[in-house]
Every structure is written in C-alpha cells, then in structure tokens.
C-alpha cells in the first residue's frame, strides 16, 4: 500500500536558516509516530510540512503517491496546531459550528463533541477569549477531531490538559494513524509504534523501548 505521506530529500530553509536538511520520511497507515527533540530544531516545521500546511523549500512531498492525493489526505486528516486555530471572539460552540459548516457537518456533531470534551452548557456559550488554557486546548482538540479524521497530526497535544482527559485522548489515539510532536515523551511513548529524534536538521529513527 502506498504511504500516506512521503518526503524525499526535503529541505526547509527559513530565510538563510536551514531548519531541515535532506529529510526522508514516510507515514504509513496505522503508524503512531512520536517526534521528539529539543526546542527549535524543526519538529513543528516537519509536522507542518507533513500536514501540507507549508511547502518544502526543495525536495518532494507526495500524498498517497498520487497527484490527486492531497485532497483525499486533507479529507482524512485532522491537525492540532501549536496555536489554537480558533477565533477568540466567537464562543466555543460558534467556533465549532463554523468549522463544521466549512466541512458540511451538522450541529449535532458539534453538540456531542462539545459534551465529549467537557465544554457543554455555559462553557460552550462563552467566548474563547475568556477560556482558560485547558479549556482552549480541549476546544482545539474538538476542532481537530470534528470530521472524525483517521489521520492525526498533533503539535503538543497534551499541553494544559488534565490527566483524565489525556487518558481518554490517548485511548482515542490508539486506533488511528498519528504523528505527535511533544515534550511529554512518556505519555506519547505509551501509544507510539515508532519514534524519531529531530535535531541538527536531521530526523533519526530510535528503536522503541531502547530509550
């Protein structure tokens, strides 16, 4: 089966600062990948390239090894960014309803998801500007999961979440294809099937359990 995303010889340069150099990387179905490494080494950049958010400076990226694969990929993929990707002046519910409308999803889906992440009732009507960090992260998670994606690309997903929510989130992750960037390595390792260390422009696979 064709890999979901394949990077070959990918470079990313910000201005004159090379962030990634000659990256070979494949994401396959049912992979649960952990990307780790110190701050500022390009983990988030790699995730953005995988998400098709930002094009590589050079090298090639393909989705399902197909020219038309990008749209299918975007249909199946949910992205949780470093920032919330929300509108502070809309309420939690309005935010979800907007993103649901963009994908042609209904109000019921938003309601049940809000209940699942514990943001029903008054919290749903409050503007995101007045959310706590934890509530905002929950809503971001709900936004990423809105269209029930089979593939998840997650940037620091466990930040500001309480342990109860994290464990149900991890449970949910187990049945999907995932790429996670996180400093909470122990949490991610409990579900990861493969691990990569990012640093010095390179991405190196580490054996699971060896660390």
């Amino acid at each position: 089966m064709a890999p979901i995303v394949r990077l070959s010889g990918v470079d990313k340069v910000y201005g004159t600062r090379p962030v990634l150099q000659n990256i070979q990387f494949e994401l396959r179905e049912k992979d649960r990948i952990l990307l780790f490494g110190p701050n500022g080494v390009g983990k988030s950049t790699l995730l953005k390239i995988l998400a098709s958010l930002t094009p590589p400076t050079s090298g090639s990226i393909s989705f399902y090894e197909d020219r038309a694969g990008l749209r299918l990929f975007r249909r199946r993929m949910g992205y949780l960014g470093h920032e919330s990707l929300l509108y502070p002046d809309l309420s939690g519910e309005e935010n979800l309803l907007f993103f649901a409308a963009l994908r042609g999803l209904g109000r019921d889906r938003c309601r049940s998801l809000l209940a699942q992440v514990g943001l029903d009732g008054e919290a749903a009507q409050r503007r995101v500007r007045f959310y706590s960090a934890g509530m905002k992260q929950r809503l971001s998670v709900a936004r990423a999961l809105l269209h029930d994606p089979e593939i998840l690309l997650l940037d620091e997903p466990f930040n500001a979440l309480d342990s109860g929510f994290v464990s149900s989130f991890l449970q949910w992750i187990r049945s999907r294809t995932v790429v996670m960037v996180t400093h909470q390595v122990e949490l991610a390792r409990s579900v990861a099937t493969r691990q990569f260390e990012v640093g010095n422009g390179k991405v190196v696979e580490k054996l699971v359990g060896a660390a």
Partner: protein
Amino acid sequence: MREGLNAALAILRKDLVLEVRSREGFLSNLFFALLVLILFNFGFDPGSAAIVEGKAAIFWIAVVFASALTLSRTFQRESAESAIHALALLPLDPAWIFVGKFLTNFCVILLLMTLTLPLFIIFFDVSVSWRMWLLAAVCPLAAAGMAAVGTLFGAMAESTRLREVVVSILLYPIIVPLLIASVQLMRQALKLTGEIENWHWMGMMVVFDLIFFAAALVVFDYVLGE
C-alpha cells in the same frame, strides 16, 4: 463547487459576526473617512469654486483611504490564533477561501461607502437628484475591484511588519484606473460635468474587476503557507 460555495458563505457569515462584535474597528475606519472629508475643506478658501469642482475626487480619496484600513483587518483575525491554518487544510480549492474573504471585504467596503455618502452630501452641500442613482452601479463596481485586489494584498501583507502601511502602498497605485473611473462617474452623478461616456467607464470597471478577481483566484494558493 457546492461545497466550496458553502464554505465561502460560511466564512462571510463568520466574518460579519466578528465585524459586528469588534465594531470599533469599522467605526474607526468610518471616522477616518469623515476626517479626510473635513480636512480637505481646509485645503480650499471658503466658498471657492475649486472645491465644487473637486468634491467627487475628495469623496473617493476618503473612501479609498478608509477602505485600505478595513482590508488589513480581515486576515489579521485569521492569523491571531493561526485559524488560517485550519482554513488552508480544508479539502477544498483555496480559491474558495479567497471568495469568502472577498465577499466580506466587498460588504464592508460597500457599507463604508454607503455611510460616507450622506456625510459627504451634508458637508459638501450636494443637491440630491435622480442622477445619483448612477452611484448604485458605481459603488458596487468600485467596491468589488478594491475588494478583489485588496483581499489578495491583505493576505499578502499579513506577516509583514507595518501591515496597514503595506496594504496601502500596494493598493493605491494598482487601483488608479478604478479611481479615475469612479471619479468620472461621480462627477456625472453630481452634474458637475456634461455627458460623458458612462458605459465606457463602467465597462472599464467591470474589466478591471474581472481581471483582478481572476488573477487573485489563481495566485491565492501561494499566499497561504509559510
């Protein structure tokens, strides 16, 4: 097609809600247009003929200045928490995001024009006549052109330093044809001039709008992403 149109309309609806919630932005722009109108008065001797001759131009300069300020706002709210990433990742042609944002800017600029017009009528002592119906065609055409170019420039100026200034310096030179046509037609509407070839100018505005709308649709994809 249907999916895309729905997405564009969802963006329009969401943006209009946000415009109403943070209305101080729009109101400041409208106030700015008023200031331009008033300041221009002090550039002329009281009761001089020059100001009668030039008032059509003054209206459009005020509108263009204030519109440029509204344009930088539309993508600012997308980048505040990077919501633009969520839009960019939709399984849609990014051109639909452009369409949604274009519709927003079109509505905002048209509203700005509509509200500036009565202020202009009062301060420049314009006698209202049936010929001003011409403006019902001119204003939407001008708003569409400014929104087409301005939406693209607004998106481009995002992530630059001095966002508002950048939008203005990009917008003003490009829309000169639109400005000329609008002023000519406005002079006609205010009976400041004899018969001019109205269709000629409106045709030019339509061509301007279509060319830049199409060009912006094509290149918009490249504006997204880092």
